[in-house]
């Protein structure tokens, strides 16, 4: 029948109108859903189909030197946290048995209770399970067990150089040492993956919205620290502490010709892989960089160098030693008494006579007083040239600054500077003293102390550029020569018999009082020794410090033997041929 034949008001015409109406509703609804609500439903679909994953960057590894070759000191290991969904577990006894058999040492104490807690959906039952253990557990085919991969740091050398390395906490953040200072470089940058996945979460290449930004792995850093030197330094220090009864000690070994640190040993120590077991957090501190103290008589070398460099004194010059010297209203005495009369400054250095170095400070002024000129000169040399009381910028966390009181400060008076002449009244760290001392003996070139020698790139060791002095002309080369001669003569006169023959070894003892409750303690001293060794030129600087609560430790008796032990070993290790 032709449409035109439909009569007005006929049932067929009404049916056609209804169908048309329904079709119109469909069209309108579809238009609403597909056009107006297009964005909303696309977003819903993407949320359902797209998976966004973080691609974790691999944390950079840390190497140390072993002679000329880098060796790994810190690596990454993937371990697994094992969890259960107790409501899904069908054979709880078997789960418990398998877990005990395969991962006994890693199982948590409440494992059995967790497995039987049917009302819970997620319980961790074991931590730090290895891949092999995880595979064995999976092979048992038990329901309700899951694994979560976790990356952790591994320190195969255990306690060796722990304060230099630092550790990584549970959040993946580096703390203390190199891990803390170079955290950002070691961490790298995580990548991300946005992709359509199937029901098994397998990424599919279909779709035009897939995004893949690969992770940038962290930098593999090579330290200048030599693990053999470090190991010997730690052993020598441990032996020294046992011998002397000291409870704390530090050793710093540096190459004076480029500022590279070869060893930094501190006792007590800890294992970075078990940092959470440490009871006393002070064990994390690297005392060589973070514990400023009054270096004591080691600083006499700086005072003498200043005097020689300013042409106010020579080693062979004399002064009248009365074992005491008056500075304003204070009287300063010598620890070693009896070397009175007209004596040389060489003798003053050999016997560490305070009066001799206060005299040097006076000669930097008008000869009788440590006036403003003398104080300005000492401040310039100590602070600006030898860089005591300044951050060295070494690449380790928690470096402390110390302090050298300026002559502009009301406390920077003559009494203060007379004390500074023999190492009191100022605070400096061992790395500052060693850095300044290196410039003092190497001809006057100050190198920034550094712990980083380079990095590993595609398995190849890329050395940093050859270090250049941060400041040249700290002192004149002739001053440096005279200082080496003085220190060598001082050592030969008293302790030379302990050194290997045919080498130039020199140094200075230091015994400094400890400030307790704002006053110098009469029952506690820190013993230090600061020295160098080599043949024609110095090849290493060693600084030793030993201390203990209520212990009177001396530089010559307690710290010097540790220096001697390490120094003689270094001459062999570095294959330094004797002179001539």
């Amino acid at each position, binding site marked *: 029948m032709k449409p035109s034949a439909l009569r007005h008001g006929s049932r067929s015409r009404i049916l056609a109108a209804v169908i048309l109406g329904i079709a119109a509703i469909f069209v309108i609804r579809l238009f609403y859903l597909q056009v107006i609500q297009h964005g909303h439903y696309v977003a819903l679909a993407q949320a359902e189909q797209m998976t966004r994953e973080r691609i974790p960057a691999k944390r950079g590894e840390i190497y140390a030197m072993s002679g000329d070759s880098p*060796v*790994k000191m810190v*690596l*990454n*290991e*993937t371990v697994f946290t094992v969890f259960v969904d107790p409501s899904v577990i069908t054979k709880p006894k078997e789960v418990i048995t398998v877990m005990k058999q395969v991962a006994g040492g890693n199982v948590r104490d409440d494992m059995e209770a967790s497995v039987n807690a049917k009302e819970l959906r997620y319980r961790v039952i074991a931590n730090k399970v*290895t*891949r092999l253990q995880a595979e064995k557990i999976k092979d048992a085919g038990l329901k309700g067990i899951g694994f979560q991969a976790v990356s952790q740091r*591994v320190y*195969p*050398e*255990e306690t*060796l150089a722990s304060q230099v390395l630092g550790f990584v906490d549970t959040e993946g953040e580096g703390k203390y040492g190199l891990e803390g200072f170079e955290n950002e470089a070691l961490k790298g940058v995580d990548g991300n993956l946005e992709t359509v996945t*199937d029901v098994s979460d*397998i*990424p*599919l*290449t*279909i779709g035009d919205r897939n995004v893949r930004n690969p992770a940038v792995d962290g930098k593999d850093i090579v330290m200048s620290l030599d*693990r*053999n030197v470090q*190991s010997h330094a730690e052993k020598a220090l441990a032996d020294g502490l046992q011998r002397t009864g000291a409870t704390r000690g530090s050793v710093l070994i540096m190459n004076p010709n480029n500022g590279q640190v070869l060893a930094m040993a501190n006792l007590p120590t800890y294992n970075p892989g078990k940092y959470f077991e440490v009871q006393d957090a002070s064990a994390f501190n690297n005392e060589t960089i973070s514990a400023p103290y009054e270096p004591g008589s080691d600083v006499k070398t700086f005072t003498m160098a200043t005097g020689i460099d300013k042409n106010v004194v020579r080693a062979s010059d004399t002064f009248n030693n009365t074992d005491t010297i008056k500075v304003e209203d204070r009287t300063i005495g010598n620890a070693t008494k009896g070397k009175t009369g007209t004596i040389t400054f060489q003798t003053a250095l050999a016997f560490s006579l305070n009066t001799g170095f206060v005299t040097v400070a006076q000669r930097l002024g008008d000869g009788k007083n440590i006036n403003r000129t003398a104080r300005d000169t000492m401040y310039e040399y100590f602070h600006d040239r030898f860089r005591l009381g300044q951050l060295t910028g070494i690449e380790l966390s928690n470096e402390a600054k110390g302090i050298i009181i300026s002559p502009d400060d009301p406390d920077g008076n003559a009494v203060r500077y007379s004390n500074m002449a023999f190492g009191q009244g100022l605070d400096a760290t061992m790395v500052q003293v060693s850095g300044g001392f290196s410039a003092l003996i190497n001809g006057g070139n100050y190198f920034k102390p550094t712990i980083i020698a380079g990095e590993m790139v595609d398995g190849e060791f890329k050395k940093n550029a050859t270090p250049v002095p941060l400041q040249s002309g700290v002192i004149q080369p002739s001053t440096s020569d005279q200082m080496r001669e003085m220190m060598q003569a001082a050592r030969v006169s008293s302790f030379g018999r302990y050194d*290997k023959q045919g080498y130039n070894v020199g140094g200075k003892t230091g015994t400094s009082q400890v400030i307790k409750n704002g006053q110098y303690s009469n029952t506690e001293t820190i013993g230090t020794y600061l020295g160098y060794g080599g043949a024609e030129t110095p090849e290493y600087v060693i600084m030793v410090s030993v201390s203990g609560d209520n212990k009177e430790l001396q530089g010559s008796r307690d710290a010097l033997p540790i220096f001697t032990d390490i120094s003689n070993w270094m*001459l*062999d290790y570095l*294959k330094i*041929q*004797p002179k001539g």
Partner: protein
Amino acid sequence: MSNQSTSYYVNRRQQNWSRNQNTTRYVSAIKLGPVAHTVLVALMIIVLGLIYVTQATRTTGYDYEMQKIDSQIADYDQQKSELEIENTRLTALETVKNSSVAKEMTASSNTQYVQQ
């Protein structure tokens, strides 16, 4: 309407081809109605759809293959990493010092250098 052509549209090229040739136009005797056309179009759409689905599935198959290979690479990387750790542990100074070989060693005497 007859399907047999009664009129000719002769363009220039056909004219060239046709030169000195007797061209004959064959007309199929099978006649398709609108229903058959519709069915054929639907079949073509289905075939094209099947081809698309086959290709898309094949791509997905590659994805599974890639995922499998990626997984293998990750496994090998992890095994390599574990071996490196084991190697580093075995060559750590403390391990070496405590080894039976090291315990048998004697302390070295003073190093002597030969003058050349």
